[in-house]
């Protein structure tokens, strides 16, 4: 498989100033990250607030400039492109944001919002624009007659569908979704996740999902990278990382997700303390101050990502006690699955749905 996107040793720091504007140091938001995303793959970047995952997503699209490192997209080093070439490249990469209320211009109708990238990148002749917008709306499960409406007339889920249609307009190869379903209620979130999965499969999209929600990640990602304080601590196939996490932080993160084992089951001890300040991260391994297994070596040397296709950055990874297998919890059993099938069967692919409403 060829890599569509390749990041090498990316770094970006943001200066921190005090109330008088004097430099007080820097937050190293992303600090030496290498990642490769294969064509057609869904890669998730997970971590808690402040771990650098959103900054990494923006660096990958060169929406913000890295201090160091390389971004190769479709074989080109994005950092060496001049502004005009970069603009042309942009049609192949799009970003979907968390907040569908903030990401759509309130003064543009749906038709204008979705049509703008078509015009910007000269995707279709002007005369075909309206048809293409209708096609895009149908594809995300919205009736084309909604094209003349304004963003405020839509619910959160519908707005996120509009944002997705807009992102698809330029026929991109790569989409980065920064918490694309986090602001939505569970039932609406499920609709948008199903839509995203259909689109990824049908359009053979490469998708980078930035998320803090491990359930969502487990559900749609092929591969996962776990970040902590600006660095990747573990990376591997989703199944492997969730079944047998190798880094103590990944283990703690997975154990902290509620709803696994029930109230009386043996629950993992919650991780103590808060994430240290990224202005002054701990020496050596950045997780060591909260790690129950930390030894002297962890303070001395920064661990590197090691272990092949499922890698972890931990000095002790081969000596850790085996990870607790995820608790099987299937409270509702076969009965619940059969009842839920009545809900699942009704959701058809967005293409057929569009066809029936046009």
């Amino acid at each position, binding site marked *: 498989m060829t890599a569509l996107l390749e990041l090498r040793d990316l770094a970006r720091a943001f200066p921190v100033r005090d109330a008088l504007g004097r430099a007080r140091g820097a937050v190293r938001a992303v600090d030496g990250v290498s990642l490769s995303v294969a064509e057609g793959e869904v890669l998730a970047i997970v971590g808690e607030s402040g771990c650098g995952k959103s900054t990494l997503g923006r660096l990958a699209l060169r929406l913000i400039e890295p201090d160091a490192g390389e971004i190769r997209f479709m074989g080109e080093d994005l950092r060496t492109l001049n502004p005009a070439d970069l603009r042309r490249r942009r049609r192949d990469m799009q970003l979907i944001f968390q907040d569908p209320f903030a990401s759509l211009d309130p003064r543009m109708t749906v038709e204008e919002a979705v049509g703008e990238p078509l015009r910007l990148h000269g995707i279709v002749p002007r005369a075909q624009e309206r048809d293409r917008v209708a096609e895009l709306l149908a594809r995300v499960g919205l009736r084309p007659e909604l094209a003349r409406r304004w963003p405020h007339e839509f619910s959160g889920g519908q707005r996120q569908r509009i944002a997705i249609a807009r992102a698809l307009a330029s026929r991109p190869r790569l989409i980065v979704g920064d918490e694309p379903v986090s602001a939505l*209620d569970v039932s609406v979130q499920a609709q948008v996740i199903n839509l995203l999965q259909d689109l990824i499969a049908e359009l053979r999209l490469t998708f980078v999902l930035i998320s803090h929600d491990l359930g*969502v990640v487990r*559900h749609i990602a092929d591969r996962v990278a776990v970040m902590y304080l600006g660095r990747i601590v573990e990376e591997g196939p989703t199944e492997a990382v969730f079944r047998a996490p190798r880094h103590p932080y990944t283990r703690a993160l997975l*154990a902290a997700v509620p*709803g696994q084992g029930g109230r009386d089951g043996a629950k993992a001890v919650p*991780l103590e303390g808060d994430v240290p300040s990224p202005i002054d991260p701990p020496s050596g391994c950045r997780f060591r101050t909260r790690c129950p297994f930390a030894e002297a070596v962890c303070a001395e040397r920064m661990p590197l990502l090691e272990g092949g296709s499922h890698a972890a950055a931990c000095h002790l990874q081969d000596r850790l006690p085996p990870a607790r297998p995820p608790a099987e919890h299937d*409270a509702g059993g076969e009965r619940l699955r059969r*009842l*839920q099938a009545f809900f*699942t069967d009704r959701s058809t692919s967005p293409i057929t749905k569009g066809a029936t409403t046009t």
Partner: protein
Amino acid sequence: MSAPVLELRDVTVTLPTDRGPLRPVDGVSFAVAPGKTLAVVGESGCGKSVTALAIMGLLPQGSRIGGAIRFDGQELTALDAEAMRGKRGAELAMIFQEPMTSLNPAFTAGEQVAEALRLHQNLSPAAAMDRAVEMLARVRIPDAGRRARQYPHQLSGGMRQRVMIAMALACRPRLLIADEPTTALDVTVQAQILALIDELKAETGTAVLLITHDLGVVADHADEVAVMYAGRVAERAPAARLFANPQHPYTVGLLGAAPSLEGGAERLASIEGTVPDLRNPPPGCRFAPRCPFAVARCAEQPPLAPMGEGHLAACWRAPLDSLLVAA
């Protein structure tokens, strides 16, 4: 079973709005026993937070409450504003999703906890501050003496939520209402805060009303659950029973819509459509327009009918098991 600390009977809330009155809570009944946690689950707009504000007497001016809210046998809706003020903070306490908006930025963490103690327990300022530091230590704020002298902006999100909990529990309330207490927090911090609430509840016998949209949180921390949809209770059951044997179609859909850590399902259960407009709700069962099991009879409102062992469901088609035999 001991007498409930809180009991709601057929509570309705009517809010005045520019476009006429709105009824976000429409006939809600449930009860919470001492030392137990009742979770109220539902999506935005289902009425769960308005129900909490009604209990606390914190609804906007001009709102009307119908039905009965009994707290330790006393009817709260009959109390005047001053009597309610005396109850809040002392016997009834509430913590919110975003601690930054509920803490006063101009006072230190210690001062804010101490204020609650001075107001409701007649302690001297010095004694109140000592107790406040003690409370901050109890909610496991490291180095509590120093932290007590810090202002909210100097504390992390998890730390601020601990200060809120310390404030809420300082006077050992009979009832704690926690409205999405961990939604703004990271998952590892969320686990710490919820464990803390459980621990303090076991210690003090406080009843907890936990308002959340997260079914995982419900599974780990609730004794009983009320599932709300569009202002009404759709289903009520002991927690384990609700997850093992849900009887309302909305609960079934909701359980299938949340992706699980074990993976599994290729597609998530998708509840088509959106929640109804409360200005113009559908007649009868409010979930019917989105329900795959709806029949003609659903145009009439179904009562909350017993399904055995403290389990109630407001659905004409419940128990749903017969649908599987036919399928």
